[in-house]
């Protein structure tokens, strides 16, 4: 069905941005643009080591700093251990709002300092004496899974447990489709690849920040640049063990996020600071904190093995992937699930085996970032496609057209494809870059495999 173009008011039109006038006049109000008299500043005492046991914290010198108001430790947090994705059934809780007896990454928050000015808060933080016994750390995903690696999680493993099957826990997100080993025996070629990526910091121009104002009716207004307003409200209420309606979140204006502002890190502790002092509290990251402390995109390691026929058909794909979640879950268990659903690619492969691990290391926690879980999968898949084309001596366009999934195909995670557009997108891309495709490829489409 084609929609007549004259009936379209928005599709294909340039629409002026609703927030554009505020942006060009400098009148858009970002969270740190709000100044409330009497606001306290919150700064964090952070772990100086990658892995350690906290033996003692001495606040005595910090308390003498002019402007110091109070410190908060884990003992002040009603429900200190949480996991953000508990809202969609992910568990168990495993990340402390403030570290208890251990720190798992360099930069982990140990205690919050509230002071009359940002400078006083920073000075007081610098005067807190930490007695921490450093423990061996692990930074490589495969090293973290080997026997003898320092164990980071209370349940005794360095991987997220996905589900139980016949009484056995699954150390990975598992996809089984067809019989890959049998198909490898039948394949004309075996093509293997290993793909590694580094963590990436979003580096938004506006750093993460929130401002909490206690209201006369006992509620708290929370101005924040979170990308996940209600998600953050719910998690904050659970951490603070207060009814959801005690919190009024004001947000929506984000000076760059890219997935870096979906974790629930600054708000709960700032609200707690406001509850304990009765004062407005601002907690804004410095640029250094934004780079060093805020979640990054996960680093991934992906091993891929494909069985390919001379005519270009991929008949088997076996993938083992490791996401470096850093010290805590944040959004990585979900990223790994998305990864497992997508790492076979937009291709019809009859035999697929996927083991995708969410691994804990002593790195800074990783989380969401633009297509997380899938972005690195796409990179690995498409480099792999080029390797296959090179190995069997076929045009890289042709190998993709031949294997492209079509409507009605069943993906390895048992979903029926209903909205395939790969062939159409590739045709459009070829036209845009001025590449002439042969007629047999141009005759193909996403809805009729006969063509």
């Amino acid at each position: 069905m084609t929609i007549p173009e004259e009936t379209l008011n928005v599709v294909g039109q340039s629409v002026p941005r609703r927030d554009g006038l505020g942006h060009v006049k400098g009148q858009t109000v970002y969270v740190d643009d709000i100044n409330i008299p009497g606001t306290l500043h919150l700064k964090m005492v952070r772990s100086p080591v990658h892995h350690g046991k906290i033996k003692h914290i001495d606040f005595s010198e910090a308390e003498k700093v002019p402007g110091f108001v109070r410190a908060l430790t884990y003992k002040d947090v009603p429900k200190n251990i949480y996991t953000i994705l508990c809202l969609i059934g992910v568990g168990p809780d495993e990340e402390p709002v403030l570290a208890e007896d251990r720190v798992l990454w360099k930069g982990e928050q140990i205690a919050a300092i509230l002071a009359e000015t940002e400078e006083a808060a920073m000075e007081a933080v610098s005067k807190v004496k930490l007695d921490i016994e450093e423990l061996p750390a692990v930074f490589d995903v495969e090293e973290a899974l080997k026997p003898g690696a320092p164990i980071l999680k209370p349940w005794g493993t360095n991987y997220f447990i996905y589900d139980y099957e016949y009484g056995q826990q699954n150390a990975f997100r598992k996809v089984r489709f067809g019989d890959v080993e049998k198909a490898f025996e039948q394949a004309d070629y075996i093509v293997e690849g290993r793909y590694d990526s580094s963590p990436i910091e979003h580096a938004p121009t506006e750093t993460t920040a929130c401002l909490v104002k206690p209201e006369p009716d006992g509620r708290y207004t929370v101005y924040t640049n979170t990308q996940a307003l209600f998600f953050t409200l719910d998690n904050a209420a659970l951490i603070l063990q207060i009814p959801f309606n005690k919190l009024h979140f004001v947000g929506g204006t984000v000076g760059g996020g890219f997935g870096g502002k979906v974790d629930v890190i600054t708000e709960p502790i700032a609200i707690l600071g406001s509850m304990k002092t009765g004062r407005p509290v601002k907690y804004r990251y410095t640029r250094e904190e934004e780079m060093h402390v805020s979640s990054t995109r996960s680093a991934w390691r992906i091993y891929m093995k494909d069985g390919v026929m001379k005519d270009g058909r991929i008949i088997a794909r076996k993938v083992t992937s490791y996401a470096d979640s850093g010290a805590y879950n944040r959004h990585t268990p979900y990223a790994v699930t998305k990864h497992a659903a997508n790492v076979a690619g937009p291709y019809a492969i009859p035999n697929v085996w996927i083991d995708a691990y969410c691994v804990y290391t002593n790195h800074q926690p990783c989380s969401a970032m633009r297509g997380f879980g899938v972005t690195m999968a796409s990179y690995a898949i498409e480099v792999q496609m080029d390797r296959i084309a090179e190995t069997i001596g076929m045009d890289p366009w042709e190998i993709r057209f031949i294997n492209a999934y079509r409507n009605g195909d069943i993906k390895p995670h048992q979903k029926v494809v209903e909205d395939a557009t790969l062939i159409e997108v590739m045709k459009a891309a070829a036209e845009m870059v001025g590449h002439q495709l042969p007629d047999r490829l141009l005759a193909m489409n996403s809805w009729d495999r006969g063509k």
Partner: protein
Amino acid sequence: MPSKVVSFKLNGREVEVMVKPLMTLQTLLREQLNLTATKAGCRQGGCGSCTVLVNGEPMMSCLLPVEDVEGQEVTTLEGITPAEGLNPLQEAFFEKYAIQCGYCTPGMIMVATALLAHNPNPTREQVIEAISGNFCRCTGYAPIIEAIQAAAQRTNGRK
């Protein structure tokens, strides 16, 4: 060290402010005078979001002690925003979608203001050089460059 009174011209108006030694112009503008069009992306001279004009020259206000602008003329985005409507640069940024999250926009417009004052007909390369100290992390540089060139053309057309 005691606070000090500093006098300078801000957006065409004489002001007298009391500041602690080494307080930056950025902190004064944002937290004491509530002129928050000047942004604070890094507070370390790295991002350009806090750019203001001092005697017409673009400067990063996060690295500028207030004492240093004694007797000088400081202009912020508030100072070049007309009471009604938009100036040609603002108009071009708005129409060309040279804005995404908006956080770099004030700094970009201030740098562009200084550029067009010195060079009413900049080449694409000169525009790129002028904004090279300003980060746009939404990576919308192409429309920003186009907007600055479009504003130059419009301004010249009006002369």
